[in-house]
């Protein structure tokens, strides 16, 4: 196995809501090997974005990292001082946001915003910064004469490339991409993902790619971390998790998305119901209320992660029956019955 760059251990992030608290992330653990792309996938509200933001420690005013460790090259990001953390931001850990339109400052040119990180965070001189700007634009395939343009003068795909250039500016070790292609159309999505993959391999960096779209994971990720209701449901190599999913949620998720390649994968079957209210999570497995395979134990005992193969784990009581469940899960009726049972 390759060396681990980042190891998230039992991460817990709590939000203050009214008088109570809500654990948006409740004991998530996963690893990011050096030089790989890890897909963090799940429905909206599952805590994937919160995990991503917790890694930068720039989180909402009412949120706190209330437990666990974020071991980056062995250093616990959750424990270091704000000053030390700030020194690491963007130099070690950079971020590609979902909507580059809103995350680029509208009143400054793109060059100004690149210069800002290059000079203020990277300590480059004026001439060096200028050279680096051009280099970065060439890397992401934008003509350098557009450096002086304002964000609104770029198309959606171009802005996302600018965001990638910005993220790579200081040669970070880890890039967190939060839904980097969600707002784009499918063709542009592919171009951006291809570019991201190419640059990632060329520069040897690690990427955490946060997405709700399992086809994006299938397209470029090396590893998959499936999150559900603030916990990790399943993780492993991309091939293992997607061809041999061992958690019913992953099986359902796979049915619910079309292929990014455009190949028809038959009927899309949604998972019925909605994720649980995290202020009052159900006892036992959090997926149990929506799971077609739930047994009595699932509603009372919270499942531990079971290693189904080397480096492939699933937090499911019935993970050992996975191959049988997989067959059932490909049938649309299986997922209809939960709805019936619930109704």
């Amino acid at each position, binding site marked *: 196995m390759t060396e681990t760059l980042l190891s998230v251990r039992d991460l817990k992030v709590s939000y203050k809501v009214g008088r109570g608290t809500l654990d948006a992330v409740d004991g998530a653990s996963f690893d990011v090997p050096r030089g790989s792309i890890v897909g963090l996938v799940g429905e909206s509200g599952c805590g994937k974005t919160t995990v991503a933001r917790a890694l*930068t420690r*720039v989180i909402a005013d009412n949120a706190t990292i209330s437990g666990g460790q974020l071991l980056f090259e062995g250093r616990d990001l959750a424990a270091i001082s704000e000053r030390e953390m*700030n*020194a*690491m*931001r*963007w*130099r070690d850990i950079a*971020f590609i*946001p979902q*909507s580059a339109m*809103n*995350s*680029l*400052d*509208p*009143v400054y*040119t793109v060059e100004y915003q690149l210069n*800002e*990180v290059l000079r*203020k*965070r990277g300590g480059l001189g004026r001439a060096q910064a200028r050279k680096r700007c051009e280099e970065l634009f060439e890397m992401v395939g934008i003509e350098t004469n557009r450096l002086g*343009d*304002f964000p*609104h*003068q770029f198309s959606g795909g171009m802005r996302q490339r600018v965001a990638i250039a910005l993220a790579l500016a200081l040669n970070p070790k880890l890039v967190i991409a939060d839904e980097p292609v969600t707002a784009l159309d499918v063709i542009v999505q592919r171009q951006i993902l291809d570019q991201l993959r190419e640059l990632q391999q060329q520069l040897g960096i690690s990427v955490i790619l946060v997405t709700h779209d399992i086809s994006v994971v299938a397209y470029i990720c090396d590893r998959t971390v499936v999150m559900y209701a603030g916990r990790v449901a399943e993780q492993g190599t991309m091939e293992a998790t997607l061809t041999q999913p061992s958690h019913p949620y992953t099986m359902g998720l796979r049915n619910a998305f079309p292929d990014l390649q455009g190949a028809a994968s038959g009927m899309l079957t949604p998972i019925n119901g909605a994720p649980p209210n995290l202020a009052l999570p159900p006892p036992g497995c959090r997926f149990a209320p929506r799971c077609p395979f739930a047994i009595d134990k699932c509603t009372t005992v919270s499942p531990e992660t079971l290693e189904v193969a080397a480096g492939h784990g699933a937090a499911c009581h019935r993970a050992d029956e996975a191959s049988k469940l997989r067959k059932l899960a490909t049938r649309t009726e299986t997922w209809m019955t939960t709805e019936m049972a619930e109704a």
Partner: protein
Amino acid sequence: MSHLKAAASRTLQLAFVLWAVVTMLFLMFRLMPGNPLAAYIDPTFTEEQQQALMAQFGLNEPLWKQYLIYLGNLLQGELGQSFRYREPVAERIMTLLPNTLILTFSSLIIAYAFGIIAGAWLAWRRGALVEKTAIPLVLTTRAMPEFWLGMVLLAIFSFWLGWFPAGGTRPAGANYDSLFALYTSSDFLTYLALPALTLAIYSQGLPLLLMRSNMLDVMKEDFVTMARIKGLSNWTVVVRHAARNALLPVMTSFAIAVGYQLQGNVVVETVFSWPGLGRELVNAVSNSDYPLAQGAFLMIAVVVILMNLIADLLYALLDPRVSHA
């Protein structure tokens, strides 16, 4: 190109507004009760003067012709003769305009400098005790009659402490080689201080509240969060990104505020005997000096309308989303 077109259409629109105000003024002064000639001719003028004015304004022509002559005269800057000063209204107004503009701009610059900084700071300290007490306090300054504030400041700083003169623009008997010499003299500043402070205290509320609420909006924007994730300093995040964006509408409001300020000037100039347009308007109306009243009102209206236009153009200039479309 499209923003040039927008600017042109806005200019046309305001030209229309100006024409409408001019026409309204014409009708008001013509339809006023009593002798319609009274709007231009003082009975104490000599026969020749009266005849000259009759001819100049076509006062014995039908109304529509008078209207055309009126518009033609306006275009040439001809506003008639002041009854009281026995001099052309236009000249009188042009000597007063600088005083009014100096008072307006100096007070607004103070008000905006303070309001912008304080507003940004209050947004930063959102929810703190200072913020909760400051906002009602600021609203209270907006509830003060400006002239009353002027009276209070005069009572304290002029009559009680004796730090500043009680009114006017220069010491009695003082003479200056030029207007420039007057405006740059230290005496002038001591005369300017209290009226400017009065207007500034009244005006700071607008930029302050505007800046604060814009800041609160901008602080929620993604690019501010991103600036933090980039590890930029607090100063850079708050000032370079949040405040810079929040400032845009505040800067445009400056031009609008000039228009509003001219109204406040009317009373504050009166309190401080400041020889400006507003005080002249009041005096002219009190003395039934109709040509002068009309001219002063028109000048104020022109500045208000012009400032509306400048506000629009300024916005287009300052916001790259518009200027670099």
